[in-house]
């Protein structure tokens, strides 16, 4: 019985005789889980002895679907990977296609990509902080964070016509030139956003309830972070200074002056706070990018609409809001990818849940899950 696929539908086979524990099913659509995640929790009283994430509820087979679409047609699919940060998946995919096909991207397009991706980082972190706050009962912080996110999303809607599924970054450039007055509005947003962040820092991170709920909960040591392949704010919260924008610089990132915030304790509080500080850094990058950006083409001229790269493979990765997001593509010389594989940071970070949740209370489980910030579209693909 045990070990068979699907046998976890029944709990009785998970209870070991003689062990006094309760098996509780959290999810798949529990209100405080993020996306469609199911966690089978073994409880001794109220203490978690084991937590097993069960994934696959949002599996759409995007990697397989990509094999039946042309290179351009895959871009809207990548929007659906990480639906909180679609720009990243767009960009990671397009970078790989560009590497595969040897396409040079115009400089202005690179700047636009950096701007939208840093804005996306703000939107994604605001979503993460807002839902982490909602999990700990801080409803005001949730509204404040989503208010900030809404402004980014409105700017995106103005830029490319969609609120979440942008389809903006394309192989060889970006799809739209910025509308008139957009940069001024973005700069204004950056200024307002800093005030918002400061307010949130005081309201949420200075709050004694938040500190009690999040400090020393789900402690991840730097060694474990590296060993388990954690990346992004999860690794940086543990003090692992690893950011692809700095340590494997891509695009025009070397031209910007920014810091990589890191935590020291590796608990939920540090992971969340790292996200807050990253938003400040994103504002800095956006401002520098807007001031450095020169007019020019936004798409590589003379690019065929149907790309058919030479046979071969390519891998490229970028630093998404969740960590190192990589896309691996194999081409067989036709107009469709032969194979696409996505290395999703959310998946790797979610794998830490059993490690972190053990020994904590059941009510801490949602806080830990929230601090890992998994997006299940990307976990399940």
């Amino acid at each position, binding site marked *: 019985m045990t070990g068979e696929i699907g046998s976890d539908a029944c709990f009785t086979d998970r209870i070991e005789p003689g062990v006094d524990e309760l098996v509780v099913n959290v999810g798949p659509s529990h209100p405080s889980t993020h996306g469609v995640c199911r966690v089978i929790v073994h409880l001794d009283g109220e203490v978690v002895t084991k937590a097993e994430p069960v994934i696959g509820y949002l599996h759409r087979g995007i990697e397989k679907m990509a094999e039946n*679409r042309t290179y351009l*047609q895959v871009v809207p699919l990548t929007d*659906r990977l990480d639906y909180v940060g679609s720009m990243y998946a767009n960009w990671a995919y397009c970078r790989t296609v560009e590497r595969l096909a040897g396409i040079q991207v115009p400089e202005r397009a690179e700047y636009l990509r950096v701007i939208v991706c840093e804005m996306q980082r703000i939107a994604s972190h605001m979503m993460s902080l807002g839902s982490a706050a909602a999990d700990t009962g801080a409803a005001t912080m949730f509204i404040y964070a989503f208010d900030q996110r809404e402004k980014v999303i409105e700017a995106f*809607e103005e830029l490319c*016509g969609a609120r979440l*599924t942008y389809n903006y970054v394309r192989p*060889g450039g970006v799809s*739209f030139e910025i509308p008139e007055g957009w940069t001024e509005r973005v700069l204004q947003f950056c200024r307002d956003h800093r005030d918002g962040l400061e307010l949130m820092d005081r309201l949420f991170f200075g709050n004694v309830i938040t500190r009690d709920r999040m400090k020393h909960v789900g402690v991840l040591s730097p060694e474990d972070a590296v060993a388990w392949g954690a990346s992004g704010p999860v690794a940086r919260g543990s003090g692992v200074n690893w950011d692809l924008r700095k340590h494997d610089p891509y695009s025009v990132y070397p031209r910007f002056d920014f810091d990589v915030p890191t935590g020291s304790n590796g608990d939920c509080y540090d992971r969340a706070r790292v996200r807050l500080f990253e938003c400040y850094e994103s504002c800095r990058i956006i401002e520098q990018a807007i001031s450095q950006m020169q007019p020019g083409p936004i798409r590589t001229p*003379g690019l065929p609409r149907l790309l058919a790269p030479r046979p071969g493979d390519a891998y490229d990765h970028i630093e998404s809001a969740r960590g190192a997001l990589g896309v691996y593509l194999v081409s067989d010389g036709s107009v469709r990818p032969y194979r696409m594989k996505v290395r999703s940071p959310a998946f790797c970070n979610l794998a830490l849940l059993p490690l972190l949740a053990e020994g904590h209370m059941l009510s801490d489980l949602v806080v830990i899950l929230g601090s890992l910030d998994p997006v299940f579209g990307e976990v399940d693909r």
Partner: protein
Amino acid sequence: MWGKGILTGMRITMRNMLRGPITVKYPYERLEIPERARWAVAPKYDGEGKPKCTACMACVRACPDHILDLEFTTREDKSKHIERYSYEIGACMMCGLCVEACPFDAIEMSHDYELARLDPAQLTYDLLADVDAAPVKRARPATAPKAEAAPDEPASTEAAPAEAAPADPVGKEATDE
């Protein structure tokens, strides 16, 4: 210590109480949606109310979901008659690739966002049915067919950003099948 905290809290409460609402009562009030907003695909018509579509099939090939379907007949004089140009909105992901692919600026992402239907069968409908396709006025160069703005209306306003896409030298004729 407590008094200060309560006063700070009340200050925020007062400030939010005194400002106007930021939400709108949707069916009665509507927010303005941006110019580039992408919603249901809709056909465009020329000044005389005739569709601008020339039945070139570029949009059908561009759609990642294969939800556009265009059936046409070609007459003796090479002019085309569109029997049916069907569109399945239930499966459309509003990506806009069909609009970008159209070389004649004949379709657009409309601002029609109220897409709920009572019957699933209504999710597939005809954008155009039983109409004559617009003639391709400009004789295509024999060698390199280029995607440019609509021949009869070069100064189009809405689709200007989409036109920033590179003119493709390989062209849409280069299908892989």
